């Protein structure tokens, strides 16, 4: 698989993953990046450009909290539009996955 294709593929999936994680619970940046880079092996830094874009699109919002031990943390939370985007992307993903299984077969 071409390297650039691989990266594009991961990026598309990355947004779906971030939306999903934030739908589970509000999280600070490091929580999201460490969870995702472990799972899909991307440089952690690439999550921030995506979060920034999602903030611009008003899919996520941020708020600051003081933690008892350590620095203040900035949490990201999903907006209503973010929840809707998640629903739409999940539907797309399902269709895409079904189509892939059609070609590749189901290994399960």
């Amino acid at each position, binding site marked *: *698989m*071409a390297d*650039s*294709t691989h990266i*594009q*593929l991961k990026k*598309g999936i990355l947004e779906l993953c971030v939306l999903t994680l934030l739908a589970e619970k509000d999280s*600070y*940046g*490091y*929580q999201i*990046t*460490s969870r995702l*880079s472990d799972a899909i092996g991307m*440089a*952690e*830094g*690439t999550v*921030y*450009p995506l*979060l*920034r*874009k999602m903030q*611009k*699109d*008003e899919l996520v919002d941020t708020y600051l909290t003081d*933690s008892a*031990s*350590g*620095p203040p*943390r*900035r949490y990201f939370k999903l907006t209503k*539009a973010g929840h*809707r*985007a998640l*629903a*739409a*992307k999940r539907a*797309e*993903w399902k*269709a*895409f996955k*079904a*189509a*892939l299984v*059609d*070609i*590749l077969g189901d290994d399960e």
Partner: protein
Amino acid sequence: MSRALFIVKLKEGLAGLPQSEIDEIASDYEFHFAEAAAAGQSEDDIVARLGDPTRLARELRGGTEQRHPAEEELTPEAPVTISSGTSTRGRLGLLLALLAMFGMGAAAYYIAGRAPAPVVNAPAAPSRQTIAATGARIMISGGQVVDLGTIAQERIEIVLDGAGAVTARGRVKELTLHIDGSGSADFGALQADIVHVDLSGTGNAEVWGALMADITILGSGTVRLKEKPKALTQSVTGSGKVILPN
């Protein structure tokens, strides 16, 4: 590389953007350094896991440059033809390339055996827009009001995932409409042979499908039919309803 050098290189790479934006982006990474350090990571590890700051800056610039959606997001008809002898591997490669170009929706489209439709991403600003619709799959997000004008084409697919509104007139063979939010679609003056509506949310739609209408409602949305189609398939889950003409 140290934290300080990472930030310097990042800012160098962002030069030219407004200072306020550079500061905000740098603070994203400053927060990350603090949070990762609190989780017990060394500065070297944090830098190594973040990736190359110059490359990140390039990515950030790409995401912040102002683009004119009508010019740049409207992808021309994709020159993709598959001969029957194409290997599975080749097909997969093409599929992934399509995925990269058009996103998952179009790739799924391709597999379904249809030509991949160009994707028009309507701009995010809430404003009145007119977008040329040429066999397109049109995404409308946020609160925009979009008038597609008078249409004459084979098929059109519209995805409305915010609180926006969309309208069009004219004639198509097949209209596919997905409404995920509270948006509203007025296609009472767009005559179609076949209409598919998929409504999940509180939105509403008026459509005109002369031959066939296939309507799925999940939630409290309403679909009003301009004319009773020859064949009507409906599935309603929730308090939503399909309203037929008198």
